[in-house]
Protein backbone atom coordinates (compact mmCIF):
# COMPACT_ATOMS: atom_id res chain seq x y z
CA UNK A 1 0.00 0.00 0.00
CA UNK A 2 1.17 3.45 -0.75
CA UNK A 3 1.39 5.89 2.09
CA UNK A 4 -0.03 9.36 2.22
CA UNK A 5 2.80 11.78 2.46
CA UNK A 6 3.29 14.88 4.49
CA UNK A 7 1.71 18.13 3.44
CA UNK A 8 -1.19 16.31 1.87
CA UNK A 9 -4.33 18.26 1.12
CA UNK A 10 -5.95 16.86 4.26
CA UNK A 11 -3.49 18.47 6.58
CA UNK A 12 -3.19 21.46 4.30
CA UNK A 13 -6.88 22.09 4.71
CA UNK A 14 -6.70 21.44 8.41
CA UNK A 15 -3.95 23.96 8.90
CA UNK A 16 -6.01 26.68 7.30
CA UNK A 17 -9.06 25.80 9.27
CA UNK A 18 -11.17 28.26 11.18
CA UNK A 19 -14.02 27.48 13.58
CA UNK A 20 -11.98 24.70 15.26
CA UNK A 21 -13.35 21.19 14.87
CA UNK A 22 -16.61 22.50 13.38
CA UNK A 23 -15.40 23.16 9.87
CA UNK A 24 -12.79 21.73 7.54
CA UNK A 25 -13.38 23.74 4.35
CA UNK A 26 -14.71 20.79 2.46
CA UNK A 27 -18.32 21.70 1.71
CA UNK A 28 -17.78 20.63 -1.89
CA UNK A 29 -17.44 16.98 -0.91
CA UNK A 30 -20.90 17.07 0.66
CA UNK A 31 -22.28 18.78 -2.44
CA UNK A 32 -20.61 16.28 -4.76
CA UNK A 33 -22.19 13.46 -2.78
CA UNK A 34 -25.63 15.06 -3.06
CA UNK A 35 -25.34 15.50 -6.81
CA UNK A 36 -24.19 11.92 -7.26
CA UNK A 37 -27.11 10.66 -5.18
CA UNK A 38 -29.62 12.80 -7.10
CA UNK A 39 -28.33 11.40 -10.35
CA UNK A 40 -29.40 7.90 -9.37
CA UNK A 41 -32.70 8.65 -7.65
CA UNK A 42 -35.06 11.42 -6.60
CA UNK A 43 -36.01 12.46 -10.14
CA UNK A 44 -39.72 11.98 -9.69
CA UNK A 45 -39.77 13.94 -6.45
CA UNK A 46 -37.91 16.77 -8.11
CA UNK A 47 -40.33 16.90 -11.02
CA UNK A 48 -43.43 16.88 -8.83
CA UNK A 49 -41.99 19.76 -6.85
CA UNK A 50 -41.69 21.74 -10.08
CA UNK A 51 -45.16 20.97 -11.42
CA UNK A 52 -47.08 21.72 -8.25
CA UNK A 53 -46.95 25.53 -8.50
CA UNK A 54 -47.40 25.37 -12.27
CA UNK A 55 -50.65 23.46 -11.79
CA UNK A 56 -51.78 25.99 -9.21
CA UNK A 57 -50.98 28.81 -11.58
CA UNK A 58 -52.99 27.26 -14.37
CA UNK A 59 -56.00 26.34 -12.24
CA UNK A 60 -56.20 29.47 -10.08
CA UNK A 61 -54.62 32.02 -12.39
CA UNK A 62 -56.29 31.04 -15.62
CA UNK A 63 -59.41 29.38 -14.26
CA UNK A 64 -60.27 31.54 -11.29
CA UNK A 65 -58.70 34.54 -12.98
CA UNK A 66 -61.40 34.44 -15.66
CA UNK A 67 -63.99 35.29 -12.98
CA UNK A 68 -61.81 37.67 -10.95
CA UNK A 69 -60.55 39.73 -13.88
CA UNK A 70 -57.92 42.40 -13.23
CA UNK A 71 -56.69 43.24 -9.74
CA UNK A 72 -54.62 46.00 -8.21
CA UNK A 73 -50.85 45.31 -8.22
CA UNK A 74 -48.23 46.46 -5.68
CA UNK A 75 -47.82 49.89 -7.30
CA UNK A 76 -51.55 50.48 -7.72
CA UNK A 77 -51.49 49.44 -11.41
CA UNK A 78 -54.03 46.99 -12.82
CA UNK A 79 -52.65 43.50 -13.53
CA UNK A 80 -54.27 40.18 -14.41
CA UNK A 81 -55.10 37.84 -11.53
CA UNK A 82 -52.64 35.28 -12.90
CA UNK A 83 -49.86 37.88 -12.91
CA UNK A 84 -50.87 38.75 -9.34
CA UNK A 85 -50.57 35.25 -7.92
CA UNK A 86 -47.66 33.98 -10.08
CA UNK A 87 -44.87 35.65 -8.03
CA UNK A 88 -46.55 34.42 -4.85
CA UNK A 89 -46.60 30.88 -6.18
CA UNK A 90 -42.94 31.23 -7.10
CA UNK A 91 -42.19 32.17 -3.49
CA UNK A 92 -44.21 29.18 -2.32
CA UNK A 93 -42.32 26.90 -4.67
CA UNK A 94 -38.97 28.21 -3.41
CA UNK A 95 -40.18 27.59 0.12
CA UNK A 96 -41.50 24.11 -0.60
CA UNK A 97 -38.38 22.96 -2.43
CA UNK A 98 -36.13 24.20 0.32
CA UNK A 99 -38.30 22.80 3.08
CA UNK A 100 -38.63 19.41 1.44
CA UNK A 101 -34.86 19.10 1.05
CA UNK A 102 -34.00 20.41 4.46
CA UNK A 103 -36.68 18.66 6.48
CA UNK A 104 -37.83 15.30 5.12
CA UNK A 105 -34.60 14.56 3.30
CA UNK A 106 -32.48 15.60 6.25
CA UNK A 107 -34.74 13.77 8.70
CA UNK A 108 -34.29 10.57 6.76
CA UNK A 109 -30.52 10.95 6.39
CA UNK A 110 -30.16 11.80 10.05
CA UNK A 111 -32.32 9.12 11.62
CA UNK A 112 -32.45 6.26 9.16
CA UNK A 113 -29.62 6.36 6.65
CA UNK A 114 -27.21 7.54 9.39
CA UNK A 115 -25.48 9.48 6.66
CA UNK A 116 -24.27 12.32 8.86
CA UNK A 117 -22.83 10.00 11.47
CA UNK A 118 -20.69 8.50 8.73
CA UNK A 119 -19.68 11.90 7.39
CA UNK A 120 -18.67 13.21 10.79
CA UNK A 121 -16.36 10.25 11.34
CA UNK A 122 -14.25 11.66 8.50
CA UNK A 123 -12.41 14.95 8.29
CA UNK A 124 -15.69 16.78 7.77
CA UNK A 125 -17.05 19.02 10.51
CA UNK A 126 -20.73 19.72 11.23
CA UNK A 127 -20.53 23.07 9.47
CA UNK A 128 -19.33 21.43 6.24
CA UNK A 129 -22.28 19.07 6.36
CA UNK A 130 -24.84 21.78 7.15
CA UNK A 131 -23.59 24.15 4.47
CA UNK A 132 -23.37 21.40 1.87
CA UNK A 133 -26.91 20.23 2.51
CA UNK A 134 -28.25 23.78 2.48
CA UNK A 135 -26.45 24.47 -0.78
CA UNK A 136 -28.12 21.45 -2.36
CA UNK A 137 -31.51 22.68 -1.21
CA UNK A 138 -30.71 26.04 -2.82
CA UNK A 139 -29.65 24.44 -6.04
CA UNK A 140 -33.01 22.75 -6.24
CA UNK A 141 -34.70 26.03 -5.37
CA UNK A 142 -32.77 27.69 -8.21
CA UNK A 143 -33.89 25.07 -10.71
CA UNK A 144 -37.53 25.39 -9.65
CA UNK A 145 -37.41 29.18 -9.75
CA UNK A 146 -35.83 29.24 -13.19
CA UNK A 147 -38.37 26.78 -14.55
CA UNK A 148 -41.32 28.61 -13.04
CA UNK A 149 -40.11 32.00 -14.25
CA UNK A 150 -39.84 30.52 -17.74
CA UNK A 151 -43.42 29.27 -17.48
CA UNK A 152 -44.53 32.75 -16.40
CA UNK A 153 -42.78 34.16 -19.46
CA UNK A 154 -44.47 31.66 -21.73
CA UNK A 155 -47.86 32.54 -20.27
CA UNK A 156 -47.21 36.21 -20.96
CA UNK A 157 -47.20 37.15 -17.28
CA UNK A 158 -43.85 38.93 -17.39
CA UNK A 159 -43.88 42.56 -18.44
CA UNK A 160 -40.46 43.81 -17.36
CA UNK A 161 -36.93 42.45 -17.78
CA UNK A 162 -36.50 43.12 -14.05
CA UNK A 163 -38.55 40.02 -13.46
CA UNK A 164 -35.39 37.99 -14.02
CA UNK A 165 -34.37 39.16 -10.54
CA UNK A 166 -37.11 36.97 -9.16
CA UNK A 167 -34.73 34.02 -9.65
CA UNK A 168 -31.97 35.19 -7.27
CA UNK A 169 -34.65 36.49 -4.90
CA UNK A 170 -36.20 33.02 -4.87
CA UNK A 171 -32.84 31.55 -3.95
CA UNK A 172 -32.67 34.02 -1.07
CA UNK A 173 -36.10 32.86 0.09
CA UNK A 174 -35.07 29.23 -0.28
CA UNK A 175 -31.90 29.91 1.71
CA UNK A 176 -33.90 31.30 4.61
CA UNK A 177 -36.25 28.34 4.71
CA UNK A 178 -33.57 25.71 4.12
CA UNK A 179 -31.25 26.90 6.87
CA UNK A 180 -34.07 27.17 9.36
CA UNK A 181 -35.79 23.99 8.27
CA UNK A 182 -32.66 21.93 8.80
CA UNK A 183 -32.15 23.34 12.28
CA UNK A 184 -35.73 22.60 13.24
CA UNK A 185 -35.58 19.10 11.78
CA UNK A 186 -32.67 18.32 14.08
CA UNK A 187 -35.12 18.49 17.01
CA UNK A 188 -37.50 16.00 15.40
CA UNK A 189 -37.39 12.40 16.48
CA UNK A 190 -40.56 10.84 15.07
CA UNK A 191 -42.73 11.01 11.96
CA UNK A 192 -45.56 12.51 14.01
CA UNK A 193 -43.37 15.45 14.89
CA UNK A 194 -42.44 15.84 11.24
CA UNK A 195 -46.13 16.29 10.45
CA UNK A 196 -46.11 19.46 12.51
CA UNK A 197 -44.03 21.01 9.77
CA UNK A 198 -46.87 20.50 7.27
CA UNK A 199 -49.25 21.86 9.87
CA UNK A 200 -47.31 25.14 9.78
CA UNK A 201 -46.53 25.17 6.06
CA UNK A 202 -50.01 24.70 4.63
CA UNK A 203 -51.73 27.62 6.44
CA UNK A 204 -48.73 29.78 5.68
CA UNK A 205 -49.10 28.94 1.99
CA UNK A 206 -52.84 29.67 1.94
CA UNK A 207 -52.96 32.82 4.04
CA UNK A 208 -49.73 34.76 3.36
CA UNK A 209 -51.44 37.13 0.90
CA UNK A 210 -50.80 34.49 -1.73
CA UNK A 211 -54.17 34.64 -3.47
CA UNK A 212 -55.56 37.96 -2.24
CA UNK A 213 -54.18 41.12 -0.63
CA UNK A 214 -53.37 41.40 3.04
CA UNK A 215 -55.94 44.19 3.45
CA UNK A 216 -58.83 41.70 3.66
CA UNK A 217 -57.70 40.78 7.19
CA UNK A 218 -58.36 42.72 10.41
CA UNK A 219 -55.35 44.63 11.67
CA UNK A 220 -54.10 42.10 14.28
CA UNK A 221 -54.17 39.23 11.80
CA UNK A 222 -52.26 41.39 9.34
CA UNK A 223 -49.51 41.83 11.95
CA UNK A 224 -49.37 38.12 12.52
CA UNK A 225 -49.08 37.36 8.80
CA UNK A 226 -46.42 40.03 8.45
CA UNK A 227 -44.34 38.31 11.10
CA UNK A 228 -44.32 35.08 9.06
CA UNK A 229 -41.49 34.53 6.57
CA UNK A 230 -43.55 33.58 3.52
CA UNK A 231 -45.41 36.90 3.40
CA UNK A 232 -42.07 38.71 2.99
CA UNK A 233 -41.14 36.39 0.16
CA UNK A 234 -44.50 36.84 -1.58
CA UNK A 235 -44.30 40.63 -1.31
CA UNK A 236 -40.67 40.76 -2.43
CA UNK A 237 -41.29 38.73 -5.59
CA UNK A 238 -44.52 40.56 -6.34
CA UNK A 239 -42.72 43.89 -6.19
CA UNK A 240 -39.93 42.65 -8.43
CA UNK A 241 -42.39 41.22 -10.97
CA UNK A 242 -43.82 44.67 -11.72
CA UNK A 243 -40.67 46.63 -10.90
CA UNK A 244 -42.21 48.60 -8.07
CA UNK A 245 -39.80 49.04 -5.20
CA UNK A 246 -40.28 50.70 -1.83
CA UNK A 247 -38.49 50.86 1.54
CA UNK A 248 -40.45 47.72 2.37
CA UNK A 249 -38.36 45.88 -0.25
CA UNK A 250 -35.29 46.34 1.93
CA UNK A 251 -37.20 45.06 4.96
CA UNK A 252 -38.23 41.91 3.07
CA UNK A 253 -34.63 41.23 2.03
CA UNK A 254 -33.36 42.01 5.53
CA UNK A 255 -35.89 39.60 7.02
CA UNK A 256 -34.39 36.77 4.98
CA UNK A 257 -30.79 37.75 5.71
CA UNK A 258 -31.48 37.56 9.44
CA UNK A 259 -33.33 34.28 8.97
CA UNK A 260 -30.36 32.82 7.09
CA UNK A 261 -27.81 33.79 9.73
CA UNK A 262 -29.94 32.50 12.60
CA UNK A 263 -30.81 29.34 10.70
CA UNK A 264 -27.19 28.44 9.87
CA UNK A 265 -26.09 29.07 13.45
CA UNK A 266 -28.96 26.99 14.78
CA UNK A 267 -28.26 24.13 12.40
CA UNK A 268 -24.52 23.98 13.00
CA UNK A 269 -25.05 24.19 16.74
CA UNK A 270 -27.61 21.43 16.66
CA UNK A 271 -25.44 19.16 14.51
CA UNK A 272 -22.61 19.67 16.90
CA UNK A 273 -24.84 18.83 19.83
CA UNK A 274 -26.24 15.76 18.13
CA UNK A 275 -23.09 14.27 16.70
CA UNK A 276 -20.19 15.64 18.71
CA UNK A 277 -21.74 15.19 22.11
Amino acid at each position, binding site marked *: *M*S*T*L*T*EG*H*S*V*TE*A*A*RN*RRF*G*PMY*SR*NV*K*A*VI*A*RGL*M*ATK*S*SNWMVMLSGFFEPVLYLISMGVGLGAIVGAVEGPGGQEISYAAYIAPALLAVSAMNGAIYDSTWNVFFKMNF*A*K*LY*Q*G*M*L*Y*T*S*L*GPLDVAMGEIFLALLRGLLYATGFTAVMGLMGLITTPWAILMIPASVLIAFGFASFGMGITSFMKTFQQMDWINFVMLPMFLFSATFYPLSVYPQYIQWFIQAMPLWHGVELLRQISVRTFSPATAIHIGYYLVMIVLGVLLTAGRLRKL*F*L*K
Partner: protein
Amino acid sequence: MVWVPELVSNEELSSKQTSTQSQGEQMQYVITAENLTKTYGDVIAVDGISFSVPAGEAFGLLGPNGAGKSTTMKMIGGVSQRTSGSLSIMGLDPESHGPEVRAHLGVVPQQDNLDEELKVRDNLLVYGRYFGLPMSYLRPKADELLEFAQLTDKAKSKVDALSGGMKRRLTIARSLINEPRILLLDEPTTGLDPQARHILWDRLFRLKEQGVTLILTTHYMDEAEQLCDRLIVVDKGRIMAEGSPASLIREYSTREVLELRFGSERNATIGAELEGIGERLETLPDRVLIYAHDGEAALEQVSARGLRPLTSLVRRSSLEDVFLRLTGRSLVD
Protein backbone atom coordinates in the same frame (compact mmCIF):
# COMPACT_ATOMS: atom_id res chain seq x y z
CA MET B 1 0.70 24.20 14.50
CA VAL B 2 2.02 21.19 16.37
CA TRP B 3 0.51 18.88 13.83
CA VAL B 4 3.28 18.93 11.24
CA PRO B 5 6.12 17.23 13.12
CA GLU B 6 3.72 14.52 14.17
CA LEU B 7 3.21 13.50 10.59
CA VAL B 8 5.68 10.72 10.08
CA SER B 9 5.08 7.95 7.60
CA ASN B 10 4.26 4.43 8.68
CA GLU B 11 7.75 3.21 7.90
CA GLU B 12 9.28 5.91 10.02
CA LEU B 13 6.92 5.06 12.84
CA SER B 14 7.81 1.39 12.81
CA SER B 15 11.52 2.05 12.46
CA LYS B 16 11.34 4.39 15.43
CA GLN B 17 9.53 1.74 17.31
CA THR B 18 12.06 -0.99 16.62
CA SER B 19 14.97 1.26 17.44
CA THR B 20 13.44 2.33 20.74
CA GLN B 21 12.47 -1.20 21.55
CA SER B 22 15.94 -2.46 20.85
CA GLN B 23 17.30 0.13 23.22
CA GLY B 24 14.79 -1.08 25.78
CA GLU B 25 13.23 2.34 26.04
CA GLN B 26 9.55 3.18 26.08
CA MET B 27 7.44 2.40 23.06
CA GLN B 28 5.78 4.88 20.76
CA TYR B 29 2.12 5.04 21.65
CA VAL B 30 -0.48 6.06 19.09
CA ILE B 31 -3.23 6.21 21.70
CA THR B 32 -2.85 7.26 25.29
CA ALA B 33 -5.86 7.59 27.57
CA GLU B 34 -5.58 8.69 31.16
CA ASN B 35 -8.47 8.69 33.56
CA LEU B 36 -10.85 8.94 30.65
CA THR B 37 -14.35 9.63 31.96
CA LYS B 38 -17.69 10.15 30.28
CA THR B 39 -20.97 10.75 32.03
CA TYR B 40 -24.42 11.27 30.53
CA GLY B 41 -26.32 13.09 33.26
CA ASP B 42 -26.18 10.74 36.25
CA VAL B 43 -25.07 7.76 34.23
CA ILE B 44 -21.35 7.07 34.23
CA ALA B 45 -20.59 5.40 30.91
CA VAL B 46 -16.80 5.42 31.21
CA ASP B 47 -15.36 5.67 34.70
CA GLY B 48 -11.75 6.80 34.68
CA ILE B 49 -10.05 4.28 32.42
CA SER B 50 -6.39 4.49 31.40
CA PHE B 51 -4.63 2.59 28.65
CA SER B 52 -1.99 3.02 25.99
CA VAL B 53 -1.73 1.40 22.60
CA PRO B 54 1.60 1.17 20.75
CA ALA B 55 1.70 1.52 16.97
CA GLY B 56 0.87 -1.66 15.10
CA GLU B 57 -0.84 -3.42 17.95
CA ALA B 58 -4.24 -5.11 17.78
CA PHE B 59 -5.93 -3.92 20.94
CA GLY B 60 -9.26 -5.26 22.13
CA LEU B 61 -11.96 -3.74 24.29
CA LEU B 62 -14.09 -6.49 25.76
CA GLY B 63 -17.09 -6.06 27.95
CA PRO B 64 -20.80 -6.73 28.28
CA ASN B 65 -23.41 -4.45 26.74
CA GLY B 66 -23.32 -1.00 28.26
CA ALA B 67 -19.77 -1.43 29.57
CA GLY B 68 -18.63 1.76 27.86
CA LYS B 69 -16.83 0.27 24.85
CA SER B 70 -18.61 2.20 22.13
CA THR B 71 -18.44 5.41 24.12
CA THR B 72 -14.68 4.97 24.42
CA MET B 73 -14.45 4.41 20.67
CA LYS B 74 -16.45 7.57 20.04
CA MET B 75 -14.17 9.61 22.25
CA ILE B 76 -11.15 8.28 20.36
CA GLY B 77 -12.77 9.42 17.13
CA GLY B 78 -13.50 12.83 18.61
CA VAL B 79 -17.23 12.51 17.99
CA SER B 80 -17.98 12.35 21.68
CA GLN B 81 -16.65 14.88 24.16
CA ARG B 82 -15.12 13.41 27.29
CA THR B 83 -16.25 14.62 30.68
CA SER B 84 -12.76 14.52 32.19
CA GLY B 85 -9.37 12.89 31.81
CA SER B 86 -6.97 13.18 28.92
CA LEU B 87 -6.79 11.50 25.57
CA SER B 88 -4.11 11.73 22.94
CA ILE B 89 -4.31 10.21 19.48
CA MET B 90 -0.93 10.38 17.74
CA GLY B 91 -0.06 13.33 19.93
CA LEU B 92 -3.30 15.23 19.29
CA ASP B 93 -6.39 15.80 21.35
CA PRO B 94 -9.30 14.50 19.25
CA GLU B 95 -11.65 17.02 20.81
CA SER B 96 -9.81 20.11 19.60
CA HIS B 97 -8.31 18.50 16.49
CA GLY B 98 -11.18 16.26 15.41
CA PRO B 99 -10.73 16.59 11.66
CA GLU B 100 -6.93 16.07 11.83
CA VAL B 101 -7.24 13.06 14.11
CA ARG B 102 -9.99 11.53 12.00
CA ALA B 103 -7.89 12.04 8.88
CA HIS B 104 -5.76 9.20 10.22
CA LEU B 105 -8.53 7.06 11.59
CA GLY B 106 -10.59 4.44 9.85
CA VAL B 107 -13.92 3.74 11.48
CA VAL B 108 -16.09 0.65 11.18
CA PRO B 109 -19.19 1.43 13.22
CA GLN B 110 -21.35 -1.14 14.94
CA GLN B 111 -24.10 -0.71 12.37
CA ASP B 112 -23.25 -0.33 8.72
CA ASN B 113 -23.93 3.21 7.62
CA LEU B 114 -23.10 2.83 3.97
CA ASP B 115 -24.56 5.40 1.61
CA GLU B 116 -27.53 3.49 0.17
CA GLU B 117 -28.15 6.13 -2.47
CA LEU B 118 -24.76 5.49 -4.04
CA LYS B 119 -23.33 2.49 -5.84
CA VAL B 120 -20.65 0.32 -4.27
CA ARG B 121 -17.60 1.93 -5.85
CA ASP B 122 -19.06 5.43 -5.48
CA ASN B 123 -19.38 4.80 -1.76
CA LEU B 124 -15.60 4.55 -1.61
CA LEU B 125 -14.96 7.55 -3.84
CA VAL B 126 -17.39 9.83 -2.04
CA TYR B 127 -16.10 8.80 1.38
CA GLY B 128 -12.58 9.60 0.22
CA ARG B 129 -13.76 13.03 -0.86
CA TYR B 130 -14.94 13.67 2.68
CA PHE B 131 -11.27 13.50 3.65
CA GLY B 132 -10.43 16.00 0.93
CA LEU B 133 -8.52 13.40 -1.07
CA PRO B 134 -8.12 14.02 -4.81
CA MET B 135 -9.85 11.83 -7.39
CA SER B 136 -6.51 10.97 -9.01
CA TYR B 137 -5.62 9.19 -5.78
CA LEU B 138 -9.10 7.84 -5.08
CA ARG B 139 -9.85 6.08 -8.38
CA PRO B 140 -7.01 3.53 -8.23
CA LYS B 141 -7.36 3.30 -4.46
CA ALA B 142 -11.05 2.41 -4.72
CA ASP B 143 -10.27 -0.38 -7.17
CA GLU B 144 -7.51 -1.67 -4.92
CA LEU B 145 -9.86 -1.73 -1.93
CA LEU B 146 -12.65 -3.43 -3.87
CA GLU B 147 -10.14 -6.12 -4.72
CA PHE B 148 -9.08 -6.34 -1.06
CA ALA B 149 -12.72 -6.67 0.04
CA GLN B 150 -13.46 -9.21 -2.73
CA LEU B 151 -16.12 -6.94 -4.17
CA THR B 152 -14.61 -6.10 -7.54
CA ASP B 153 -17.48 -7.64 -9.50
CA LYS B 154 -19.97 -5.72 -7.36
CA ALA B 155 -18.42 -2.31 -8.10
CA LYS B 156 -21.48 -1.05 -9.96
CA SER B 157 -24.10 -2.72 -7.78
CA LYS B 158 -26.40 -0.89 -5.45
CA VAL B 159 -25.55 -1.22 -1.77
CA ASP B 160 -29.03 -2.63 -1.19
CA ALA B 161 -28.22 -5.69 -3.23
CA LEU B 162 -25.25 -6.74 -1.08
CA SER B 163 -25.40 -9.46 1.56
CA GLY B 164 -24.64 -8.68 5.20
CA GLY B 165 -21.09 -9.97 4.87
CA MET B 166 -20.48 -7.95 1.70
CA LYS B 167 -21.78 -4.80 3.33
CA ARG B 168 -19.47 -5.35 6.26
CA ARG B 169 -16.50 -5.84 3.93
CA LEU B 170 -17.46 -2.72 2.03
CA THR B 171 -17.64 -0.78 5.29
CA ILE B 172 -14.15 -1.98 6.14
CA ALA B 173 -12.89 -1.14 2.66
CA ARG B 174 -14.42 2.30 3.04
CA SER B 175 -12.70 2.82 6.37
CA LEU B 176 -9.36 2.19 4.63
CA ILE B 177 -9.77 4.78 1.88
CA ASN B 178 -7.60 7.33 3.72
CA GLU B 179 -4.95 4.75 4.60
CA PRO B 180 -5.56 5.13 8.31
CA ARG B 181 -2.88 4.45 10.90
CA ILE B 182 -5.54 3.42 13.37
CA LEU B 183 -8.59 1.36 12.52
CA LEU B 184 -11.51 1.45 14.97
CA LEU B 185 -13.72 -1.60 14.67
CA ASP B 186 -16.88 -1.66 16.75
CA GLU B 187 -18.13 -5.26 16.81
CA PRO B 188 -16.98 -5.88 13.25
CA THR B 189 -18.41 -9.39 12.85
CA THR B 190 -21.68 -9.22 14.80
CA GLY B 191 -24.45 -10.78 12.75
CA LEU B 192 -22.19 -12.46 10.19
CA ASP B 193 -22.09 -16.14 9.34
CA PRO B 194 -18.91 -18.12 10.13
CA GLN B 195 -17.61 -17.96 6.55
CA ALA B 196 -17.95 -14.20 6.43
CA ARG B 197 -16.32 -13.85 9.84
CA HIS B 198 -13.30 -15.86 8.81
CA ILE B 199 -12.86 -13.83 5.63
CA LEU B 200 -13.03 -10.67 7.70
CA TRP B 201 -10.52 -11.94 10.23
CA ASP B 202 -8.16 -12.75 7.39
CA ARG B 203 -8.49 -9.20 6.01
CA LEU B 204 -7.94 -7.66 9.42
CA PHE B 205 -4.90 -9.83 9.95
CA ARG B 206 -3.41 -8.57 6.71
CA LEU B 207 -3.94 -4.99 7.79
CA LYS B 208 -2.18 -5.69 11.03
CA GLU B 209 0.73 -7.13 9.08
CA GLN B 210 0.88 -3.85 7.18
CA GLY B 211 1.33 -2.01 10.45
CA VAL B 212 -2.18 -0.65 10.96
CA THR B 213 -3.10 -0.33 14.62
CA LEU B 214 -6.39 -2.11 15.26
CA ILE B 215 -8.73 -1.11 18.06
CA LEU B 216 -11.58 -3.53 18.29
CA THR B 217 -14.58 -4.17 20.47
CA THR B 218 -16.27 -7.51 20.36
CA HIS B 219 -18.60 -9.85 22.18
CA TYR B 220 -16.93 -12.87 20.65
CA MET B 221 -14.14 -14.23 22.75
CA ASP B 222 -12.80 -16.41 19.95
CA GLU B 223 -12.52 -13.27 17.85
CA ALA B 224 -10.57 -11.51 20.58
CA GLU B 225 -8.27 -14.52 20.97
CA GLN B 226 -7.72 -14.66 17.23
CA LEU B 227 -7.05 -11.02 16.61
CA CYS B 228 -5.91 -9.19 19.72
CA ASP B 229 -2.33 -8.90 20.91
CA ARG B 230 -3.60 -7.31 24.06
CA LEU B 231 -6.95 -6.42 25.49
CA ILE B 232 -8.76 -4.86 28.36
CA VAL B 233 -11.90 -6.25 29.91
CA VAL B 234 -14.27 -3.41 30.75
CA ASP B 235 -17.30 -3.60 32.98
CA LYS B 236 -19.48 -0.73 34.18
CA GLY B 237 -17.03 1.74 32.70
CA ARG B 238 -14.01 0.39 34.56
CA ILE B 239 -11.08 -1.78 33.50
CA MET B 240 -11.34 -5.18 35.17
CA ALA B 241 -8.23 -6.74 33.65
CA GLU B 242 -5.58 -6.05 31.06
CA GLY B 243 -3.14 -8.27 29.18
CA SER B 244 -2.66 -10.64 26.27
CA PRO B 245 -5.34 -13.33 25.81
CA ALA B 246 -2.91 -16.02 26.99
CA SER B 247 -1.75 -14.10 30.03
CA LEU B 248 -5.33 -13.29 31.03
CA ILE B 249 -6.22 -16.97 30.84
CA ARG B 250 -3.19 -17.83 32.95
CA GLU B 251 -4.02 -15.18 35.48
CA TYR B 252 -7.78 -15.52 35.80
CA SER B 253 -8.43 -19.12 34.88
CA THR B 254 -6.78 -22.53 34.95
CA ARG B 255 -5.26 -24.40 32.06
CA GLU B 256 -8.24 -26.70 31.68
CA VAL B 257 -11.90 -26.83 32.60
CA LEU B 258 -13.92 -29.93 33.43
CA GLU B 259 -17.62 -29.60 32.65
CA LEU B 260 -19.94 -32.06 34.38
CA ARG B 261 -23.68 -32.51 34.01
CA PHE B 262 -25.65 -34.40 36.62
CA GLY B 263 -29.12 -33.27 35.53
CA SER B 264 -30.74 -29.98 36.46
CA GLU B 265 -32.03 -31.07 39.87
CA ARG B 266 -28.87 -32.68 41.13
CA ASN B 267 -26.17 -30.22 40.01
CA ALA B 268 -26.53 -28.02 43.09
CA THR B 269 -26.51 -30.85 45.65
CA ILE B 270 -23.65 -32.74 44.03
CA GLY B 271 -21.69 -29.51 43.68
CA ALA B 272 -21.16 -29.58 47.45
CA GLU B 273 -19.69 -33.09 47.27
CA LEU B 274 -17.12 -31.99 44.70
CA GLU B 275 -15.42 -29.46 46.97
CA GLY B 276 -11.67 -29.74 46.95
CA ILE B 277 -11.26 -31.04 43.41
CA GLY B 278 -9.37 -28.66 41.12
CA GLU B 279 -8.57 -25.06 41.96
CA ARG B 280 -12.04 -23.61 41.72
CA LEU B 281 -15.56 -24.89 41.43
CA GLU B 282 -18.54 -23.20 39.86
CA THR B 283 -22.06 -24.60 40.10
CA LEU B 284 -24.42 -23.48 37.38
CA PRO B 285 -28.06 -24.52 36.94
CA ASP B 286 -27.23 -26.82 34.02
CA ARG B 287 -23.72 -28.00 34.88
CA VAL B 288 -20.80 -27.91 37.27
CA LEU B 289 -17.48 -26.43 36.17
CA ILE B 290 -14.25 -27.53 37.75
CA TYR B 291 -11.26 -25.32 36.96
CA ALA B 292 -8.13 -27.45 37.13
CA HIS B 293 -4.64 -27.64 35.67
CA ASP B 294 -5.31 -31.21 34.56
CA GLY B 295 -8.93 -31.88 33.64
CA GLU B 296 -8.57 -35.64 33.16
CA ALA B 297 -7.03 -36.00 36.61
CA ALA B 298 -9.90 -34.01 38.08
CA LEU B 299 -12.38 -36.31 36.34
CA GLU B 300 -10.66 -39.33 37.89
CA GLN B 301 -11.00 -37.74 41.31
CA VAL B 302 -14.71 -37.23 40.65
CA SER B 303 -15.08 -40.91 39.75
CA ALA B 304 -13.04 -41.88 42.82
CA ARG B 305 -15.67 -40.14 44.98
CA GLY B 306 -18.25 -42.41 43.45
CA LEU B 307 -20.01 -39.70 41.45
CA ARG B 308 -21.28 -40.57 37.99
CA PRO B 309 -22.00 -37.52 35.84
CA LEU B 310 -24.40 -37.91 32.87
CA THR B 311 -21.84 -36.26 30.62
CA SER B 312 -18.34 -34.95 31.16
CA LEU B 313 -16.12 -32.78 29.01
CA VAL B 314 -12.54 -31.67 29.45
CA ARG B 315 -11.56 -28.56 27.49
CA ARG B 316 -8.91 -25.88 27.41
CA SER B 317 -9.68 -22.74 29.33
CA SER B 318 -10.75 -19.91 27.06
CA LEU B 319 -11.05 -16.17 27.19
CA GLU B 320 -14.76 -16.70 27.70
CA ASP B 321 -14.04 -18.23 31.13
CA VAL B 322 -11.97 -15.18 32.01
CA PHE B 323 -14.65 -12.84 30.74
CA LEU B 324 -17.46 -14.51 32.67
CA ARG B 325 -15.39 -14.65 35.81
CA LEU B 326 -14.59 -10.95 35.61
CA THR B 327 -17.94 -9.62 34.51
CA GLY B 328 -20.27 -12.14 36.12
CA ARG B 329 -22.90 -14.44 34.67
CA SER B 330 -26.00 -12.43 35.31
CA LEU B 331 -27.61 -10.65 32.37
CA VAL B 332 -26.75 -7.00 31.94
CA ASP B 333 -29.53 -4.87 30.53
